């Protein structure tokens, strides 16, 4: 997997978060390679990628961070991980991925990317296992509302 594939996801995540939550502090952490399966922080949004590229992206954060981000995005204090939090966090993943796909489309001379609707996997001590691939590229975003880890595994379609 090429490292250049993860950058559009990171820059889209930063700009999307800042647009929804003005004043949010977001710092990009160090790129790492992780072997699947890896331990989820508790609230993982999974989106499949197909078309000229194929793979998956997972936005992972803990429950407290998910509730905080959703509360900010809805302009109301949400007490816990309810349906509105789930739907907000999934749509955040959808928007980041859609924006990243537009960047990749430009960067890769018109290659087209389709994305699946997001699914949210909730549960601590849960493993994100993957039968197809062995390695994810990871970039953590350190924010004032908690960490978000972006996991990307994409390759050119065979």
């Amino acid at each position: 997997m090429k490292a250049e594939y993860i950058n559009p996801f990171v820059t889209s995540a930063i700009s999307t978060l800042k647009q929804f939550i003005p004043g949010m502090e977001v710092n990009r952490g160090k790129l790492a390679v992780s072997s699947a399966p890896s331990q989820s922080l508790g609230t993982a949004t999974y989106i499949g990628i197909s078309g000229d590229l194929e793979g998956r992206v997972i936005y992972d954060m803990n429950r407290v961070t998910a509730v905080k981000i959703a509360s900010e995005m809805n302009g109301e204090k949400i007490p816990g991980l309810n349906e509105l939090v789930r739907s907000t966090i999934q749509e955040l993943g959808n928007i980041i991925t859609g924006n990243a796909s537009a960047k990749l489309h430009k960067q890769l001379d018109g290659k087209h990317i389709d994305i699946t609707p997001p699914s949210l996997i909730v549960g601590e001590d849960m493993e994100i296992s993957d039968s197809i691939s062995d390695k994810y590229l990871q970039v953590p975003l350190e924010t004032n509302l908690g960490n978000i880890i972006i996991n990307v595994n994409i390759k050119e379609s065979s």
Partner: protein
Amino acid sequence: MVVTTDDEHLLTLGNNEDGEPFKCAVVDDSAFMVKNLVRMLESFDAEVIATAENGKEAVALVEEHGDELDFLTLDITMPEMDGLTALEEILKIEPELKVLMVSAMGQEDTVKESVMKGAKHFVVKPFQREDVFNRLEKVLKG
């Protein structure tokens, strides 16, 4: 997106040809997005008469309410049936319906495909309130 500007009430779409508020429907699989779009469209003085959460529901919605609708906002990435497929089906039922795509899938070829299939405009998420308003005004009055 949280709408908190002071000039919230300055943006109004006014009335349709019948002298009534514009009637619309919102289609998006995210309850978060539906909630925000409904709130925003109502702040523009439009009346949201129905919502749907996937393409199939959107087609059923247009079968039922198509003749009452002045416009419809349509997401692309949805389960059951995606928005581009739904767009074709919807326009078969109501060829004159004004459809505004509201999607994160801003790849140039997707935007072109939407317009070729008959959508009037395309708003990329995350959107600015003024941007949606300006495009809607063009769609409704242009």
